């Protein structure tokens, strides 16, 4: 108790050290805090962290081209599901606290519950990607630098018309590239 009081008194009393030094210490402290904060947040972006709760869906990506391919360039969970720029990333991370509640309540705790909710979860992600113009796709697949002479005729046709005009965005056609598809009965452009 006395230690706490002494500590508090020291914190709230003026210092004998020069202002510059205090400021510098504050600066270093801020630097360390920022580093620790970001390291912690990047730890929540790793595949191991996500598969702690979402293991079945992380398993589904193993057969796809974003997991293993000719060149070895790949995408993990955060590359597609967490925005890159800082402001949107923080917003998404705050929204993710909702998922802790879902974890506690076991909203998708069993396979049946997950199957039922899968369409809703998929649509939420597709809507988010449509809203930000598939920004996560464009983080790696830059449309301005797509070489149409290297693509097959089908890709050239679709990319040079609907994608170039802005009428469609990546995720409108490229659904199910990473995970299995939910029931696509009412999804536009499918069946």
């Amino acid at each position, binding site marked *: 108790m006395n230690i706490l009081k002494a500590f508090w008194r020291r914190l709230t009393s003026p210092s004998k050290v020069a202002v510059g030094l205090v400021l510098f210490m504050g600066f270093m402290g801020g630097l360390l805090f920022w580093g620790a904060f970001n390291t912690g947040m990047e730890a929540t972006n790793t595949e191991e962290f996500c598969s702690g709760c979402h293991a079945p869906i992380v398993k589904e990506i193993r*057969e*796809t*081209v974003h997991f293993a391919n000719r060149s070895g360039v790949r995408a993990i969970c955060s590359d597609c599901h967490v925005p890159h720029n800082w402001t949107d990333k923080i917003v998404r991370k705050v929204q993710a606290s909702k998922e802790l509640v879902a974890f506690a309540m076991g909203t998708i705790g069993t396979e049946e519950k997950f199957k039922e909710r899968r369409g809703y979860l998929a649509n939420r992600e597709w809507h988010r990607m449509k809203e930000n113009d598939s920004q996560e796709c464009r983080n790696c697949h830059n449309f301005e630098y797509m070489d149409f002479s290297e693509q*097959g*005729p*089908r890709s050239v*046709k*679709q990319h040079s018309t609907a994608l170039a005009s802005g009428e469609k965005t990546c995720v409108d*056609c490229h659904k*199910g*590239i990473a995970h*299995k*598809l*939910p*029931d*696509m009965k009412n999804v536009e*452009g*499918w*069946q």
Partner: protein
Amino acid sequence: MKRLVLAVMAVGMLLAGAAQSAEELHNPGGIGGVESLRGVSELEVTRPADAFKRYPRDQGTIDSDYVYQPPLIPHTIRNYEVSLNANKCLACHSWKNAKEMGATKISVTHYQTREGQVLSDVSPRRYFCQQCHVPQADAKPLVENDFQRVDALR
């Protein structure tokens, strides 16, 4: 005369045996093995695996060889999901999407039941495309084939 014929036959068989291809089983009558068009494999030895065949990304339309042939798939279909939840083939080839995607429409036969009754959507018996339609890999034919199409299809 008989001896001459016998001698000629024996010499002929010897030459035929010598003219056989180089690959052969080294212990015929011993532990055996298998000889096939893909070469020779013995019981105790694991034959090294062949390289994977590649599927061309898109090779234009492939002409049909006979009248009711299910057309061949000229493009890659890697990871295209055809399941209860989604049919990726129909996302381009259904009557609803074909025009926008610039793809061939599936024929009317896909809307009929076994008895010929016409349904309002793709018949379940034709839902799984790959039961009939396949892509073509870059494999060389193993046996010489002189099949020719009928005049009308050439």
